[in-house]
């Protein structure tokens, strides 16, 4: 990787960091802020993985391995979140006593 590319990627990462902080101070309503913050984080992560971690030039199998881990994490989170509707809002209201 040429030094210029390295530095370029780094610069973009820094800019994105500033952007993500700046965006927080604007209220976009609802979940929009969270979505944008996560989108920026994902772009940053993508840059780190492709360039700093050389996946772009590495064996495609390593990309598969890494993507696989993300796939399983997202399956885990999404299937667990699917069950969220069952967690009840009144969990808080009930006082639960702890025996020993």
């Amino acid at each position: 990787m040429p030094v210029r590319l390295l530095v370029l990627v780094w610069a973009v990462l820094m800019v994105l960091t500033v952007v993500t902080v700046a965006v927080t101070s604007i209220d976009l309503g609802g979940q929009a802020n969270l979505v944008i913050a996560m989108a920026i984080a994902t772009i940053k992560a993508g840059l780190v993985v492709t360039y700093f971690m050389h996946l772009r030039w590495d064996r495609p199998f390593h990309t598969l391995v890494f993507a696989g881990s993300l796939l399983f994490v997202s399956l885990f989170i999404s299937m667990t979140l699917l069950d969220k509707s069952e967690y009840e809002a009144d969990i808080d209201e009930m006082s639960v006593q702890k025996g020993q």
Partner: protein
Amino acid sequence: MAQSTAEPLADHAASSGVHGHDGVHGENPFLAHHFDTPRHQFESGKLGIWLFLVTEVLFFGGLFCAYAIYRSLHPEIFVWAHYYLDTFWGAVNTGVLIVSSLTAAWAVRNAQLGEQKKLVVNIIITIALAFCFLCVKYVEYSHKFHENVLPGRHFNPTHEAWELESYKKAHGEAALPVTPEMHPAPAPAAPAADGVAKQPPPGAPPRPRHVSVFFSIYFFMTGLHGIHVVAGIITWLWILRRALRGEFGPKHFGAVDYAALYWHLVDLIWIYLFPLLYLIH
């Protein structure tokens, strides 16, 4: 460095399967007996390190899952608690890690090209930045310890969120000066950790229950990440030692590459931790 990380390895064909005699490779002290060529060894190590990164992703994945669930159940806790975190220091640390990622990637390049001096410099910068990260974390942590903003059942802050600068900055007018009349004597006896709160000024929300959980999650996530940073520092120190002895070169730079990959992952996790913990809206 040309197009591939593995490019500079100009070895005899790895696929020919011709072993050295008796499995002893006289020429190269770093080549283990069960590998054919340095390139073979490098490739194996590389797959190994990627697999290790996979385990790390799943390890932290569990934490992110817990975070996602708890946040979706109790968003108000996160809104309330994030005022205790200083976005400025969080952002600084993000920058610090990104720079250190740059130097780490650069170091790999140096090793591949055999630029011994630059390699050492880049490694030293990386280590220095890692320490810098830890120092900032130390400042943040000690501040919280001081204010009793502690995880779990030890949570008992000396200030309510609306008394904090960060809150006033965000809400201006709601952050009225807190006058003594607004503070009825705190309820006696009852454990102060949860539930009982000082009276909020008009317009400010009361403290939600179980705010302490946010700090449990915060300390757990950043703490675990911090441990990874410490592990990274140890790894880099070891790499530095080897670099000073001139062990790395175009044919043998695997260890630098692996350490850098690990270090980038640590950075990557922080890239997500930062908005999730500091930038809550």
